């Protein structure tokens, strides 16, 4: 297959020394195997995620994403914007749709962008990396690259919220999307059937401001993974990954549970299955070590 190119919006959490830096490492390894070239949007800015609304308001928030789109149009014309972070994808795609739906909003946004000499057309497609995998490659093609199938592993596909709602992926149902399970299967592992908390919210940004209420949700997410017989959780979202991984000790202290289940990205699984080593797969970024994957990667 010929090289595929995309305009890449990596987002704040993927930067060096940030909370999802290991996600980016594994995405780069995965893309190398698939001959995907990610052209970073030059000088991209934060999208304000799902918590910027309160202080930012509507137009300043939309202007943030519009600036990224304008820079993408300049540097990577004609290329789809691809984000790996759920919130980056959501904010950018939402802005793209809102600007298209309202000529007033488009005008106001461009008036704001003009203050920095920019202009946006917002006519590109904004996609999540999993959409690229599913739509531009397809499961069969993705499976052809597997060198070390993840045999004997049972994995709970935790889709979460924003790589599912409100836009959906591959036209799947919001209540029981299958794409993550299919990716798990394609890599040679067994997905948990009927994972009860597959699309349950982890609290998102409110894990910071409302820790008790959020950790009650995370407890259910982890518990359901264990109930389904999983030894690992996989997710497409940096906030889901962090929330479900790092609070397990605090949840254990509160609820008397004994949770210690690794939480990885789909790209971690794929990098290992594609024969990359532990470092290339970002496994050194796991706070709860993914031992089984480390073993496979070291083989």
């Amino acid at each position, binding site marked *: 297959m010929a090289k595929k190119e995309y305009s890449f919006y990596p987002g704040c959490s993927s930067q060096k*020394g*940030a909370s999802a830096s290991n996600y980016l490492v594994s995405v780069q390894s995965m893309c190398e195997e698939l001959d995907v070239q990610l052209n970073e949007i030059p000088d991209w800015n934060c999208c304000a*995620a799902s918590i910027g609304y309160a202080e930012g308001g509507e137009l*300043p928030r939309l202007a943030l994403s519009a600036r990224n789109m304008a820079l993408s149009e300049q540097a990577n014309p004609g290329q789809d914007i691809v984000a790996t972070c759920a919130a980056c994808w959501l904010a950018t795609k939402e802005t793209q749709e809102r600007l298209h739906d309202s000529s007033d909003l488009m005008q*106001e946004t461009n008036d704001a962008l003009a203050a920095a000499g920019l202009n946006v057309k917002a006519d590109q497609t904004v996609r999540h990396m999993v959409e690229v995998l599913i739509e531009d490659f397809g499961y069969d093609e993705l499976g052809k690259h597997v060198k070390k199938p993840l045999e004997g592993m049972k994995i709970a596909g935790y889709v979460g919220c*924003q790589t599912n709602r409100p836009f959906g992926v591959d036209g799947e149902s919001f209540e029981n999307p299958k794409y993550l399970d299919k990716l798990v299967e394609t890599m040679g592992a067994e997905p948990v059937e009927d994972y009860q908390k597959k*699309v349950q919210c982890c609290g998102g940004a409110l894990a910071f401001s409302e820790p008790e209420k959020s950790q009650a949700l995370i407890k259910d997410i982890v518990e359901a993974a264990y109930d389904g017989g999983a030894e690992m959780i996989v997710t497409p979202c940096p906030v889901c990954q962090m929330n479900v991984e790092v609070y397990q000790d*605090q949840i254990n202290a509160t609820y008397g549970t004994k949770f210690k289940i690794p939480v990885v990205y789909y790209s971690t699984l794929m990098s290992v299955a594609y024969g990359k080593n532990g470092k290339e797969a970002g496994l*050194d970024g796991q706070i709860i070590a993914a031992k089984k994957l480390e073993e496979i990667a070291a083989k």
Partner: protein
Amino acid sequence: MSDANTAMVEKYRNSFLKEVEANVEEGEWVKMCMQCGVCSGSCPFGPHWAHPPQELFMMIRAGKREEVLTSDSMWMCTSCYNCIVRCPRELPITHIMHGLANYAHRLGIAPKNQPTRKFAKLFWENLTKKGRTNELKLGLSLYFMNGFGDGVKTSLKMKDIGLGMLKTKRMNVGEMWGGHACKDTNGLHAILKKAREIEDAKMQKF
């Protein structure tokens, strides 16, 4: 901002619904709610809302301005979008909740010590300063948002998580001095300033 609040009360004396339609993001959808309650039943923080979304919609229509805007209900929104995809009338409920929270915040009458309100303000200030989120400073400012004593307590509680993040290079102490940034922060600030001016002017006009 209490002046702005007084001005709005004067202007929309007889209709809070009109005020919401004119000033709250996606507020024009409020009248479409058919009171089925699916949003409230679908919310992950549902039990913690004093007034779940469908109730807020009815309260807006009933003119309960004070109760709605000073409520901490809409601050319970985790942005999970479950209500949006399930709403039979396809109201953009998540955005309306964000809009209500933002409007109450702008008018200065949102609950003062609401933790998500404080966090959201810290987050916006953090990200707009250099154009990219500084996770280290954001985390620390969050721990200390209720004062020094509370901050030390929270920091101790979060110590193990912080160490785990440091060890795996998912947190960087160097972010304290400098850190990631956009190159054209001046341009970014100019855009945001202009956007805010346009939005404020709209609020005056209605």
